[in-house]
């Protein structure tokens, strides 16, 4: 499981976010309560998704003092059955801002785990109470922490830490925060309802401050395939991204400390022996092919310094000045900076410059991007006007800009790899919608992956009609990366496409009891606003949505036609049954007869036609069954 092990890195201080908490959705007690719920629930679902665990999420909101009027203090607890977080990571994960594990390009509900930390920060600011984290990674021991954030230092303060025996894996986070449930309640309930619709493999329960329990049991037991982390596509990058990727690709001159020297000695097979400078160089030449890059760099440095291990231990490399062919170092023995010239003819010189100047353009492109092989890389270099062996470290800012621009312009890259996406899939979506709405008609579709500006995306949709749907008019549930989009629906691309359709053409006239579920998955959803509630009308996405809806609407109209015929037949039979006996009664007296004519014959004939149509109906009561 090493490939799915999350990396933890510390990126930036919490001070900045404390000052900009409005941006993260913590502007007032109503919004903050809702945002906090979202962040914790989504973190829980993400954690389970990534490990292929069927999620079991329990959300509880309790008022600290129920008698007080809103806004007031609440305790928000979200418990999941995910993999948990290792004890040693907990203080940093929950007690610093921008400490997260969601890097790389793959579809996930949230980004960087930043939101959860923001919620904790907001809770601490408004109540001055610590966050309680309980985590078990082995279903035996639970590590329970009480933490505060030191905002200035961006460091966790552990107030309590104890362990406890437990029977289940999972994470439970509990915070105190200032909130307004009377205003945020309907939003939170909508959120939980819609989340369970798009996550039919999850069991979600919500206990609200009034003690009301909302339970959404698991509807299916299969999980969609988890997304894989992939390299970015050339179309989806900008200058900044490239600069960041370049920094990662450049090899730094390793710090030559005791540990490093120990490693070099070991690799040269000289752990115990103390050899002279020339003897070490001889040994290195013989073993060169087996040596790692780091060790080679140290050897190269030693070749110019003309030092053995003992001397090497007393200096620190300061700078490698490639243009002037000089090597600067700090000598601890006489506490001064010294420099030596490097011979450019030396084989070691090339080793050093290559290290500092980074990879060649072609190597960089093939290693760092998806859909770029060696041939494509060479072709692209030619297109962009660079030598294929151009070293990235030697690029000027203008050249970088040109590279970035060319990456966008080059037409021959293959479309982005959608394996980083995790749509729900047709079957789970259909099952979920069926249990949710128990409709008379249901159809779903998942389009194959497409891309906009280098970002892959997949659209999946479902339409349900009639049955238990009690709403009148078309109700659209919008989701992006399995997150419900609850607000700002007016300006959303999905609504635009739905409203552009002439539904009467598909026999859905007036205010039909119709539900549309739309799910857009992408490594980057093009939101219109910072609120992340509405998707922008990118042409490529709009097209896919339109194709989905048209496909499903055609099926709906077939269903409506059949249903119309069956209804008409039934109506006709009812009319005959009502009027024909009357006609018989009247004409009997008119004709001066005593006995009524035998009109049963025509009634029965009609019935047989009707039942034929009924059989037709029963064969296919629901599309896609």
């Amino acid at each position, binding site marked *: 499981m090493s490939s799915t092990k999350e990396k933890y890195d510390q990126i930036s201080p919490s001070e900045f976010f404390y000052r900009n908490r409005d941006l993260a959705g913590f502007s007032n007690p109503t919004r903050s309560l809702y945002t906090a719920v979202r962040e914790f629930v989504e973190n829980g679902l993400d954690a389970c998704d990534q490990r292929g665990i069927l999620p079991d999420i329990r959300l509880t909101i309790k008022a600290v003092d129920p008698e007080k009027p809103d806004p007031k203090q609440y305790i928000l607890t979200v418990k999941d059955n995910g993999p948990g977080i290792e004890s040693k990571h907990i203080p940093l994960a929950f007690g610093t801002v921008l400490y997260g594990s969601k890097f790389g390009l793959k579809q996930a509900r949230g980004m960087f785990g930043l939101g959860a930390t923001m919620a904790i920060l907001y809770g601490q600011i408004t109540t001055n109470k610590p966050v309680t984290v309980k985590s078990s990674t082995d279903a035996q021991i639970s590590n329970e922490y009480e933490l505060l954030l030191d905002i200035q230092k961006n460091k966790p303060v552990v107030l309590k830490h104890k362990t406890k025996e437990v029977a289940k894996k999972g994470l439970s986070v509990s915070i105190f925060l200032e909130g307004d449930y009377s205003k945020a309640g309907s939003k939170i309930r909508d959120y939980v309802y819609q989340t369970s619709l798009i996550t039919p493999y999850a069991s979600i329960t919500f206990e609200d401050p009034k003690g009301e329990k909302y339970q959404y049991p698991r509807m299916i037991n299969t999980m969609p395939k988890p997304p894989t982390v992939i390299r970015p596509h050339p179309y989806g990058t900008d200058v900044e991204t490239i600069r960041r990727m370049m920094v990662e690709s450049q090899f730094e001159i390793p710090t030559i400390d005791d540990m490093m020297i120990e490693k070099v000695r070991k690799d040269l097979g000289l752990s115990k022996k103390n050899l002279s400078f020339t003897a070490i160089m001889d040994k290195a030449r013989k073993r060169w092919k087996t040596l790692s890059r780091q060790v080679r760099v140290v050897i190269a440095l030693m070749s110019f310094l003309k030092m053995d291990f003992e001397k090497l231990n007393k200096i620190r490399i300061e700078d490698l000045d490639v243009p002037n062919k000089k090597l600067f170092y700090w000598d601890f023995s006489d506490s001064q900076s010294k420099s030596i010239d490097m011979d450019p003819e030396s084989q070691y010189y090339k080793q050093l410059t290559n290290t500092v100047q980074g990879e060649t353009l072609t190597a960089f492109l093939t290693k760092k991007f998806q859909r770029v092989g060696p041939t494509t890389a060479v072709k692209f270099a030619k297109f962009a006007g660079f030598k294929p062996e151009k070293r990235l470290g030697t690029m000027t800012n203008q050249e970088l800009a040109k590279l970035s621009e060319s990456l966008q312009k080059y037409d021959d890259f293959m479309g982005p790899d959608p394996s980083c996406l995790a749509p729900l899939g047709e079957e789970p979506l259909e099952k979920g919608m069926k249990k949710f709405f128990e409709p008379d008609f249901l159809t779903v579709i998942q389009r194959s992956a497409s891309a906009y500006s280098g970002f892959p995306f997949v659209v999946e949709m479902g339409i349900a009609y009639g049955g238990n749907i009690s709403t009148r008019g078309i109700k659209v549930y919008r989701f992006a990366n399995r997150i419900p989009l609850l607000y700002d629906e007016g300006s959303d691309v999905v609504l635009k496409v739905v409203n552009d359709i002439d539904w009467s053409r598909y026999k859905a006239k007036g205010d039909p009891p119709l539900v549309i579920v739309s799910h857009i998955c992408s490594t980057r959803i093009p939101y219109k606003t910072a609120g992340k509630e509405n998707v922008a009308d990118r042409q490529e996405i709009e097209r896919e949505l339109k194709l989905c809806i048209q496909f499903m609407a055609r099926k709906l109209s077939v269903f409506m036609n059949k249903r119309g015929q069956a209804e008409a037949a039934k*109506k*006709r039979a009812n*009319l*005959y049954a009502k*009027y*024909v006996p*009357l*006609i*018989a*009664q*009247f*004409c*009997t*007296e*008119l*004709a*001066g*007869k005593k006995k009524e*004519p*035998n*009109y049963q*014959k*025509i009634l029965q*004939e009609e019935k047989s036609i009707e039942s034929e149509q009924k059989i037709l109906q029963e064969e296919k009561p629901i599309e896609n069954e």
Partner: protein
Amino acid sequence: MSKTSESKAKALSKKTLEKQKNILEMLKSHGAKIYDDLDNGLFPKFSIPSRSVSNIVYDKKLRQYILGNSSALRSSKNTSQLRSFTQLMWLAFFANRLTTEKKSSTLRDIYYSSQAFEIDFEDQGESDNIIVDLEAVTTRPREDFHIFPEERSSIFGDLNIEYTIPGYEGKTMNLSNHPDGYAIGPSLTTAELVDTSAEIVIAIEKGGLFTRFVEEQVDKKFKSIIINTGGQAPRSTRTLLKRLHDEMKLPVIILTDGDVYGEHIAMVIKSGSANAAHLRELTVPDAKWVGVWATDIEKYKLPTIPMTESDIKRCYDLQKDPRYLDGIWKKELEVFLRLKRKAELEAFSKYGLTNITDKYLPQKLELAKSL
């Protein structure tokens, strides 16, 4: 009552019975056909002469509108026709009972009676329409089936009648005995017309003027029978006018308001309406409209009021009607359109309450002889 009139009444009565028998037989044959269809496992159907505008044509010889040759099939299999089919069947059934039992009914009464038989008419308009259907299928006016409109027209004058309705058979009545006049209802319409001293029938549009005429003894002064049509003359009144003309050999003159609607009231008495194009016994082609004409407005300097938009539109509409293409009909329409003003019968009150009976009427009666 003289012996000759008595025998005449008996002969007429026989004629009435004959007519009734024919109607009952016709209804029976329709019923039998539908009975047989049902018994044979067929959805019954019949054809109805089409009453759409395109099928209404003016017959110059008959001097009235009649229906053309096109007809529509009404089938009980067609669910959009099933309901009206059943309604028509019920009406035939109900008309059969009325005729057999010699009971009368009104349009409104038909509408309410239907409810006892689970026949749902949405409103009286719908039942009235089905009654017209029955008329069209049988080519008999509803009065033959003992279905009458609400009474609103009346008659006054020296006319002896003999009732034929159950309970009153043989009873006679002189229609000058009651100064309010007699309502023209089923019993009067079906009564035998025995004899009269009158020499002319004056049909007048308005109840107010009718009362004035009675008060001024127009019946005696001009040896006339006065009939109040109550606006557009109902069918029963037109039937009575026709019988007075045909059976009693009395000329008929018509007095209306001096406007385009009055002109058309006279025309309908004379040559029928498009609405009743399916019936042919409702017209008095020899009836004469004597006033108030548009030219009278100028001639008598009558007080007027301006014509409304709809009055003017009506003028233009009537100009397209073939009956308005010649004679006074054409001329008066043109004058109305020129004047753009209209006058009521009451306008003569300007010259005194009795001016209309003392001056105007004698002049018009004289004029009528030459029309």
